[in-house]
């Protein structure tokens, strides 16, 4: 039917009804990051939980300082400290059930440890040993992920698979503010929303991607505002308020588990240390900014709340400190032992069975090692 044939007979109908698939308003984050500590909400929080969070935060901070010290002693190749971000790490991990999965980025050793991972096994990657020193299935912690944002679609796929199987498992995926610029972030959030997969995305907005400040990373009102573009709720939370992080993540996990689909959470926090021990943060930021954030320290915030309310006394603080020191001493001692790696393991897990080519290379290396150990080599 050409245009001219249409004419005459044609009376334009109204456009096929346009209906937004949902009201965007409830998806939008609040203007202010959600806080619990120092607010009315704190009085409703479970004291046991707060105390547990406190102990874990103290332990986490000690882990960070100990690991950083180990880099100076050459016992770790590199350590991306999460000092200042312990509330995000610990509270988010504790908001999960045992059967849930954690998808950490390279900075999230603490979250993995908070899930029960052995503190030494969590560090094999950063020590220069094999990448994943633990069985991911044991504590349901995926390998620490280095290529930014690439772990997010994995979390979506796993959560989707669990749902298809009828398991009420939720996946928590962690990523940084910088990582939110990667295409994989976009694709993961979109798949999650379309599939209504039980995933929670937690962006730790710590102000920087190495040296690049947030203002060069995004022009959005907040990273949480990205949620509406996928049709999922966005939440903003004070990332240094462990009680608030726990509540917001736990809410999102519950929502996901109940079949409500994914949530995007932006936690506002700050990286107190340099990007890693190898980084020189003075090249891109001033001390005063760091000092301001030290005044909003996640441990001090929680400690203040607990002591003010009589839920923690000197003895309790001392107990947390002692436990942290015990962990640190154990970590130090075990990290001071040289791991024994077998070079022949280079070929062991490239495939289920080594290819003929790998078997040849295996034989070559074996011969070299034998020659070396016989001292007969050049």
């Amino acid at each position, binding site marked *: 039917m050409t245009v001219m044939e249409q004419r005459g007979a044609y009376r334009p109908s109204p456009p096929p009804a346009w209906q937004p698939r949902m009201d965007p308003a409830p998806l939008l984050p609040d203007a202010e990051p959600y806080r619990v500590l120092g607010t009315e909400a704190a009085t409703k929080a479970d004291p046991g939980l707060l105390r547990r969070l406190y102990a874990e935060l103290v332990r986490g901070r000690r882990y960070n300082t100990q690991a950083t010290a180990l880099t100076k002693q050459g016992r770790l190749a590199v350590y991306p400290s999460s000092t200042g971000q312990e509330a995000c790490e610990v509270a988010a991990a504790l908001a999960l059930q045992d059967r849930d999965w954690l998808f950490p980025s390279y900075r999230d050793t603490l979250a993995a440890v908070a899930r029960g991972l052995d503190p030494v096994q969590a560090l094999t990657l950063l020590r220069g040993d094999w990448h994943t020193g633990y069985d991911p299935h044991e504590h349901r912690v995926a390998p620490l992920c280095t290529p930014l944002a690439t772990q997010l679609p994995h979390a979506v796929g796993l959560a989707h698979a669990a749902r298809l199987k009828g398991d009420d498992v939720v996946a928590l995926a962690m990523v940084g503010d910088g990582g939110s610029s990667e295409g994989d972030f976009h694709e993961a959030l979109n798949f999650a929303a379309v599939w209504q997969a039980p995933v929670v995305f937690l962006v730790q907005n710590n102000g920087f991607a190495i040296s690049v400040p947030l203002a060069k990373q995004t022009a959005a009102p907040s990273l949480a505002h990205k949620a509406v573009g996928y049709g999922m709720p966005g939440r903003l939370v004070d990332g240094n308020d462990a009680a608030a992080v726990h509540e917001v993540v736990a809410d999102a996990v519950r929502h996901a588990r109940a079949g409500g689909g994914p949530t995007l959470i932006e936690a506002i926090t700050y990286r107190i240390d340099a990007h890693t021990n190898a980084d020189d943060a003075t090249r891109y930021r001033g001390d005063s900014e760091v000092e301001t954030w030290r005044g909003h320290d996640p441990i001090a915030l929680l400690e203040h709340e607990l002591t003010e309310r009589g839920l923690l006394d000197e003895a309790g603080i001392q107990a947390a400190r002692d436990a942290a020191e015990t962990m640190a001493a154990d970590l130090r001692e075990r990290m001071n032992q040289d791991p024994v790696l077998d070079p022949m393991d280079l070929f062991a*897990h490239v495939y289920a069975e080594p290819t003929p080519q790998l078997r040849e290379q295996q034989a070559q290396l074996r011969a070299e090692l034998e020659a070396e150990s016989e001292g007969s080599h050049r």
Partner: protein
Amino acid sequence: MTTVAVKPATMAQALTRGLRDAMAEDPTVHVMGEDVGTLGGVFRVTDGLAKEFGEDRCTDTPLAEAGILGTAVGMAMYGLRPVVEMQFDAFAYPAFEQLISHVSRTRNRTRGKMPLPITIRVPYGGGIGGVEHHSDSSEAYYMATPGLHVVTPATVADAYGLLRAAIASDDPVVFLEPKRLYWSKDAWNPEDPQSVEPIGRAVVRRSGRSATLITYGPSVPVCLEAAEAARDEGWDLEVVDLRSLVPFDDETVSASVRRTGRAVVVHESGGFGGPGGEIAARVTERCFHHLEAPVLRVAGFDIPYPPPMLERHHLPGVDRILDAVGRLQWEAES
């Protein structure tokens, strides 16, 4: 034992059947990709699967290749066996980071704790008059990525057998489907498909004594045609179909070249940095003193895949193969 009439089937049909049988046998097999559900894929290879197994088993994904492969990784981590379709060769490129950084390495990274049994189906190669980005031969990228298996069928029976083997493999397999062989027909009985060949074995498609043509995928029929034509020139050519680029069947290939003393590697992918370099080098390493002439290569030119109107000049054809055979220093013999 009943005898069933063996009717001709196309490669596309054999692939569909392979997917269907795998899904029927193993509930963890999931097919996913762009348009694989309702439409049955742009080449109809997944036709009927969504209907038979439901949309949760054969899923139209959002349009994002990294997302498709990335979510497949997560599904595999939870025990599923995703079979991912990349709609065309060049549209697999957005998924390369997931492929290289995760799919190929997660087993190794986790010391065997997290194998990723993912099959990545890639319709590949030219000769179908496709516009740009629809005719790439990208096997060099996959071959250079340790941790992947790379296979490609040249016959209807292999399409079924290799696909079943790929899906059954506990490792990721890049499964290259030669687009221009989709409609090639062969006597093949879908009701009684031949036993599944293991991945990693080449096969001598035609025996000969003069020289060996080493090839795979879409170039296999071309080489067989060349071998027929070569009889007029007095050459009796052997044709080896590699079937699997990784792992590589050195045994079969070297045995053939030791017998014939001469070899030409034939593929459609670009020559420079392409599969032929590896193949020629390893054959030479193994058969040096049996060689009467250097192993030659007939490949696509080192250019972006040309427009349909010029592709016949780019693709290795019978003449170009025979020219190469002619340069195998036959004088030395007399």
